[in-house]
């Protein structure tokens, strides 16, 4: 069934809810309220495990320091400073790695039985997944702002003008959001938080490291370049980099948006289908 069909709702519930002939606008409003409730619950959980938030922020900071001060000398950025080359890659990497917590969170909810409770309630069935991915998006905004600040501290600068600079961050967040549906699918498939953690990272390593995120693709062997040039992380990093540096970006932005739309559609459908099955 489609994701839209999943917005089914209980009607005529004892608490005096909508009558039988509830129109879809009313249902949509209720679904939004459900998503809001689940999102708030997930954010409260994040805020109440501050250590998790701190450690998951330290990791990308270490990547920045590692590449900025250890590897920078060995890598020749195509034009200009390596830190300007590096940070867009770090932004995208951070958004993706943060998305892996979507898989862990959902698997933990499944295991803890809270999803059974949700599924026995007259709420929109899409709200558990939507509330999870939206909460993770909001957390990603926080971590991304932190990474921008860290980037600035080590010498990174935006050169695209306010509109393009913000658009570059917007693409990072959209890309992370699209990927969180992949992670949602993984979390629902493996159903166990530890496995979800590992299974979530597996697709990330080839995508992030065999990409233009940290090193120019031209330095890779030919067979790898073929992959690295077209895969979504490279395309998105190139788009972010072009926007943030003020270079012509349409070509990459366009390709990146196609990837984002494709991921959203495919994995939202798969995740919803898997959710109905658990």
């Amino acid at each position, binding site marked *: 069934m489609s994701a839209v069909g999943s917005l*089914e*709702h*209980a*009607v*005529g*519930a*004892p*608490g005096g*809810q909508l009558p039988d002939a509830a129109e879809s606008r009313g249902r949509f409003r*209720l679904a939004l*309220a*459900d998503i809001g*409730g689940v999102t708030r*619950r997930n954010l*409260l*959980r994040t805020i*109440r*495990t501050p250590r998790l938030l701190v450690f998951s922020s330290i990791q990308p900071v270490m990547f920045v320091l590692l590449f900025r001060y250890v590897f920078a000398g060995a890598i020749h950025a195509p034009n200009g400073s390596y830190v300007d080359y590096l940070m867009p890659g770090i932004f995208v990497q951070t958004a993706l790695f943060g998305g892996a917590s979507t898989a862990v969170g959902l698997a933990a909810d499944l295991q*803890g*039985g*809270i999803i*059974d*409770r*949700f*599924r*026995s*309630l*007259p*709420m929109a069935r899409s*709200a558990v997944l939507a509330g999870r991915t939206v909460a993770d998006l909001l957390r990603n905004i926080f971590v991304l702002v932190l990474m921008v600040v860290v980037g600035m501290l080590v010498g990174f600068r935006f050169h695209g003008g306010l509109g393009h600079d913000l658009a570059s961050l917007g693409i990072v967040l959209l890309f992370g959001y699209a990927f969180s549906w992949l992670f949602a699918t993984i979390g629902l498939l493996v159903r166990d938080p530890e496995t979800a953690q590992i299974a979530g990272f597996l697709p990330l390593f080839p995508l992030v490291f065999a990409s233009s995120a940290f090193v120019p693709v031209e330095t890779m062997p030919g067979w790898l370049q073929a992959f690295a040039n077209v895969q979504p992380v490279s395309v998105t990093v190139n788009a972010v980099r072009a926007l943030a540096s003020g270079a012509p970006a349409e070509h990459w932005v366009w390709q990146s948006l196609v990837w984002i739309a494709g991921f959203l559609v495919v994995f939202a459908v798969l995740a919803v289908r898997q959710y109905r099955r658990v």
Partner: protein
Amino acid sequence: MTDAVIEARGVSKSFGTTRALEGVDLVVERGTVLGLLGPNGAGKTTLVRILTTLLAPDAGTARVAGHDVVREAPRVRAAIGLAGQFAAVDDLLTGRENLELVGLLYHLPKAERKRRAGEVLERLGLTDAGDRLARTYSGGMRRRLDLGASLVGRPSVLILDEPTTGLDPATRVDLWGFIEDLVASGMTLLLTTQYLEEADRLANRIVVIDHGRTIAEGTASELKDQLGGDLLEVTVADPAALDRAVELVAGLAHGSPTVDRVKRLVSAPATGKAAAVVAAASRFQAEGIDLEEISLRRPSLDDVFLALTGHGAEDVAAGSGERTASAGGAPARRARRAS
């Protein structure tokens, strides 16, 4: 015409090669309590999940509150409250936040969900702990909060999967009182349990399932009658006299006796009420066998369960680490019944 609030017909469900349910029928009338009994793995939770729309049956149909659990699942969900086998509360929310979230998902207005959360906390004796994270709750408090969450929507049908497993005896008795109040207020209830005493006390009707099939059904006393009358129990003072005691009891009773050599106890179904005790006592006296105790008692549900499934509820429970706690309570229960 019956007023069935829960009605399952030929419900079957397999997981791979495991046949969890094989054609189970079940009816719960409005305002009554049905106790679903069965050893571990009998299929109780699977049936509960089907009735609460969490799982679709492979075959058969089920209706709850007048709606089909597959085709009209959203309507079923609006009418039921579920407390699953393992407390489904969010550890990182307070008790109150847990209840208010459930209220929000029932689409209650903000003021109303606050009011109901407060009310439920009060009824379950959690008011003082209401603003603490559920992570800090004891097992019994979590269980109560979980039950509370199933009440926030004021359901007309309540389905509880082992609601008192893991609770201490006093808390269990409290919860029973609470559940009885709910039923008195007109709720229809289906509850699964490992504690036969619980079914005896709470349930109007009992369905016993094993290996996914219904093996017995009726009121507690109907089930007890199936065992064929009362149980004559004789405890001999001298272990050496045990074999002779078995022969004597076999002659007096109308079923074959069972022997507990450690307790020096022989028991067998008997008819004739007090006269049977008198007759037995005089036979033993005539043989010169000293008795420590002789009694005639009505069979307990434990005896019924043992006879039906071939193992006692506690034997089964002891197999699972999760529930060994229940084994400790069992002997005390027996002793009380026997006296």
